[in-house]
Structures are given as C-alpha cells and as structure tokens.
C-alpha cells in the first residue's frame, strides 16, 4: 500500500467517501452514499456483512435486485439499469460498487 511508505513528505490518508462514478438522482445518491459509509463503519472487519446490509437496505428502499460488491481489490464489468449505479471509495481502502439490475 502506497500510503504506508515512509517518506519525508507527509502522506495523508483520506478516509472521506469519494464518489468515482454515479448516475443516480441526487436524493438517491446521497442516501446510498450515507448507507455505504454507515455499513462500512458498522462492519469494519467483515465485508460480506457490509455488502449484505447495503444490498438489503437498498432493496427495501428502492425496489428489488440491487447488487453490491465490497472489497479492497477486484475488477468488475457489470450491466446496470440506468440511473442506478454508484461506484465509490470509502474509508480510504474500500471500494464499493452498487447497482441495480433486474
């Protein structure tokens, strides 16, 4: 991990949620991002629980068939329903991708 490298320059570890790609409506986006942050904080040691919580909550809030991927390193290529994709970083080392596809 790059940020662990000791250097004379001070490395800052950012932990704020950073949205990489999103085509949701503003309302949905805000809610989804808050949910991701909450979930990541709640189950900091278990990504499976994180993704389960996100998926279940999103299903309840915005209708069925949400998919969630949580991890520190992975690749993905997905087909999603327009206006229902959020791909964000959070907690500095976690990438969360949620999308809806029925």
């Amino acid at each position, binding site marked *: *991990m*790059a*940020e662990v490298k000791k250097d004379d320059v001070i490395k*800052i570890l*950012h932990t704020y949620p*950073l949205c*990489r*790609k999103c085509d949701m409506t503003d309302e949905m986006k805000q809610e989804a991002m808050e949910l991701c942050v909450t979930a990541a904080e709640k189950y900091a040691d278990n990504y499976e629980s994180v993704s389960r919580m996100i998926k279940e909550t999103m299903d309840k809030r915005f209708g069925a068939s949400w998919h969630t991927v949580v*991890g*520190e*390193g*992975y*690749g*993905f*290529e*997905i*087909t*999603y*329903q*327009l206006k229902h*994709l959020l*791909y964000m*970083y959070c907690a*500095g*080392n*976690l*990438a969360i*991708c949620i*999308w809806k*596809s*029925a």
Partner: protein
Amino acid sequence: MGGDTDIIRGKMLLKPDDQLQLTDTELNEEIARELTIKNTRVPNNLVVWSYHRREYVAVPHPPNIVTVLNVLGTVVHNDSEEAKKQLVGDIIVTEQIEGEDKNVNEDGKEEKTHEESDGIDDEEIEEGEEDKAGDDLIEFDADEDNMTQKAKKLPNQFNFCERAALTYPIPSKDAWTETMPPPTATCKGTIHQWEIYDNYKADYEQHRLEKEKERKVLAVHKEDVKKTTLHGDAAMANRMLQAAKTLERMVNQNVFDDILQDYRYWDDPSDEFKPGEGSLLPLWKFTYEKIKKHDVTDLCFNNKYYDLFAVAYGSMKFDDPMPNGAVCLYSLKNPSFPEWICMTDSPVMCLDFNVQNPYLLVIGTMEGSVAVYNVMLAPTTPQYKSNNVIQKHAGIVWQVCWAPDTEEGNMAFFSISIDGLINYWVLNQNELGVTNIMTLFLDHSPISGPDGTKIPLKGCGTCLVFHPNESNVFMVGTEEGTIYKCNTAYSSIYMQTYVEAHNMPVHRIVFNKFNSSIFASCSGDWRIKIWEDDRLEPLFMFDLGVSISDVQWAPYSSTVLACVSNDGKVTVFDLNVNKYRPICSQAVVSKRNKLTRLAFSNCLPFVIIGDNKGTVSTMKLSPNLRLKVKLTKKQAHLSNYELESAKLDKLLSFVREPAVLIPPKDNKEN
C-alpha cells in the same frame, strides 16, 4: 333336425346329387355309439430315459383334461367353507335385526331382506323390549339351521350410483404485452489499493485548488458584492411589484366579475317600456383608506387609457379645511386600490391631464400653487412646481387647464384662482414661467383703502373653460355669478359679460361637444343654464332646487347633459327628449352626502361621480340616456357628428325663434 323338417314341411328338399340312397329300413336302423372317457389317441406307452436309474421309465398318462380357458369367478358354492365363513360373519353383525323376521328369512328371499335392512334402525327402537326374545330366537336359529341365515346383506361394493352435471366451461383467452426493458448500460473497472490512493489524492488536490480560487474570488469581489446585491434588490423589487400588480388585477377581476360583466354588457331592459326615462346602474366605488375624509374636488379621464382617471382630493369645507390633499390615479381594472398615489401638503382643488402627453398631470391647490406631475415617475416630487414666494396665486386655484404648446414647443397651461387672476404657465427647462393673462376687475368703482388709496375690486374666478375651436377665447365664471367671455389677446377688456348670469358662484362652465357656440353653466343658485354665444339670455334654464356642483355635456350626444347636486343626486337631461324635465334623477349617495364632481367617460357609457366622503362612484348609463339619432334615408351619408349637430340645431331653432324669448318660468314642483 326333426324340428327343422316341421318347418320345411311341404317343401322340396334339396339334396346333393351324390347322396347315398338308403332304404327306409336302413334309415331306421339304430346305430349305437359308445362314448368313453378314454382318449384313444393318447399314447399309453410313452417312456423316458432316466439317467438316474440308467433305464427307460414309463411316463405317466397325460391328463384327459385340456384347459382351454381359465377364468376365476367370485361365485362361491353355498356349501363351501368360505360361504359358511361369510354367513357366520354376517350373522354377528345382523343377529339383532334378524330376530323377529325369522319367518321371512326362512322363506329365503333375499330381496326381502334388503328391504328389511333398510328399515332396521326404526324397528330397533320400537322393539327394544323384544330384544331378549330376539336373542333367544337367534340361538334357536343357529341350532336349527345355519344355512338359513343366508339372508344377511352382503356388502355390495358395486352398489353405488353416480351423478354428474356438466357446467359451461368458462372461456379463457390469452393476452399479453411486452414492455421495453429498462435501459441499461455497462460499467467496468478494476480496483487496487494504489488506484484508490491516487484517486483520493487527485480529488483532494482539486478540492484544495477550488477552495483557494474561491477565496481569491471572494477577496476580489467583496467590495462589489454590496453594490450588486443592492442593485439586484431594486430590480427584483420592481419586477415583484409588476407581478404583484398583475396578480392584484386578476384577483380583482375575479372578485368583481359580476360588476365587470354589467359594466360591459348589461343594459337595463326596462328602458324599452318607459321611453323618455333612464336609469343609472351603480358599478364600482373607488376609495382610498388614507383620504376618506377628503372631498373629491376634481375628476379627469386620461386621454390615452380610457380606464384610467385621476381624482383630486381636497376640501370644500372652507371653515375647517383639511391640512393636506392627494391625487390618486385609479384604473377600472383595479377598483380596490389606486394605481398611483401622491400626497400633497395642501388640499388639491383641480387637475387636468395633458391630451398630447397623457402622462403629464397638472394640479392646483388650495394654497394657490400649481404643480405638474409626471405620473410615470414615482409620486414623491412634482416635475414642476410654482415658486411659493413669487409665483403662486393668492387663493384657491379653482381650475387648471392645458393650453396649446407655445411657439418654442414648450407646454403650457392656464390657471384661475379665487384671487381674480388668470395665469398662463409655461413649462421651461427647469422651472415654470408665469404670465398674468387677465385680472377679473369688477365693473365697480374702486373703493377707498385704509390709507386713502383706491382699491379696484376683483372678481373671484371659480371656473375657466377654453373655446373648443378658438384657442384664444375662454369663458370665466366667478363667485359673483357673472360669466365673462375673454380673449387672451386683451388683458383688460371682456369680449362679453353675462351680468348676473347666476345669483351664486358659478361652479362650472362647459362647452357643448358638438356645437361650440353652446355652453352650459351651473351654479350654487340651484340652476343650470344653457347659453348661446352673443345671446345674453340663456336658451334653457333648469332649476333643481338644490345647489349644483358640476355639469357636463355628454361626449356622445349633443343634447345630453348631466349634473350632480348637493342632495346626492345625479340628474341627466336630454333636451331632445324632454326640454323641461330631466330624464333621469337618481340618488347615488345618501341625502346627507354631497356630490361634488362628475365626468363622462370618453368612449364608454358610464360616468364617474365624486362625493364629499372621498368616494368615486361609477355609474353606467342605461340605453335611454344615450339615445342615438335615428337615421333617415336621406341622412345616410352623414356622419354621427353632423347628425348630432343637426339635432341640436333643430332643437335650438325652436327655442331661438322669438328674438326676445322669455324662458318659461320654472313650473316644476321641486
């Protein structure tokens, strides 16, 4: 065969040709044939080699029975073991039942037992007492003959009946539709820790830059902010005002919808049945809360906007005048609030809209000053105002009226005041220029002043009107009741003097709209007089029995004039219809209130009437009050103006005929 021969008796027997011919004896010979159980064709010496015994052994005879078909039946022989078992089992079940029916059972009729068993339940109850006897009988039966007990009802598993009904099948059909699947897109990416780190870094950098820029912008624009917001506020407020005004009009239109409809479309249908009489329909009332106690001192319609009129608020109570006044512009489109309000320091007594520049409004006040307002601007300050020290009149300005532009192109107006001066004001670049046109000296010898000087007496001008065609000629009315015909060219002599035209102050002089030699005057002496130029006696005279404050000719007819009086009534005359009596006299306000001013709308059949409570009432004229001249075939080519003039001329010819006409003495009981 014997039987057959009986049937075919008497018929020819067909025989084959080669049939053996036998004699009768031969035919009757008995031939015996023996049947044995032994099958002669079966070999009886069959042997088989036995390896066991190492010799041939005889095979036993094959049986004589050849089984062709073997079907297992359910019929059981009566005497067989199984039948007995079945019978015994049934007895146990039915022993009580069978008791008393022994005789029947003995007959061995199964059908009967069926019927009996149906009725068993009932009989059981009836014959409970005989149970004992029944038991005995069964024992006896069993002893005597078990076989007779076959009357038991064997369960018959095939004894059932089936009922079915077929209903109509409900027809069904398929229907389906296909919807478009929600639009989708694909997204791909790979995530590594270093990627996350890089993205965070880039994002943070961008944020930092933006913040810095903002800070710079803020610093630069800090001074401008105040200015721009202020500017923006003013523009915004202006736009808001515009929007609010529109909304207010819309609300008013909804609230006063019925009045609006009446105003445009309603005509009193009863007019058809009372020729020579008309009525007034009250429409809106215009008031403004802050000036409720003022008198309406003048009314003037705008020349360009027919729905816009100006109202002067002043005071007619000269013993206790109001300290201030106001000018309000009202629109018929908004009856609830003035369009333009201008409060003045002194009560406003008169006003006039310019015809060419309909935004210019000149007013005269009680203190003697005149002012010109541009109603397009805010009503805070007048555009022109007379100098209070050297220019102003010494008393109430009773009337102002616009004059034709000067040769230099400046606008100008006249004013008449109670101090006996008629002034001509010119709107110069920055200020008003004033010229005295005429001083109304009375035809009376000067009286001696306190220190021996002679003071000429001046008349008190109350009204002023210019000749419609000759811009130099004007008429002046005074408090003394005299009417002067003057010319701006001569400041010292009168062209004509109508001495004692009235006995009380003349309140208004108006020229006829169609014939400029005819004018009407009204006065506090209860009378309206209609004059012709150069004729010292009035052509018509009407006495209403109450002080008349205003009179106006109708713009649409040469013979209609309306006046308002101090008893709160509006009176309308149509000389063509009735030369002696009004065709309409209607109270607008209660009797205690006075009406002060009246104005005809220029293009629509309604009048506005001001009273001494600061209210302006709008009244619609009924059809009888605005009769048009009836066209004859000869007159078809004439315009309305010519027709109206002709109507008036014809009327006047009746009145004029005798050179010295004594007006008919007023014989109205009023």
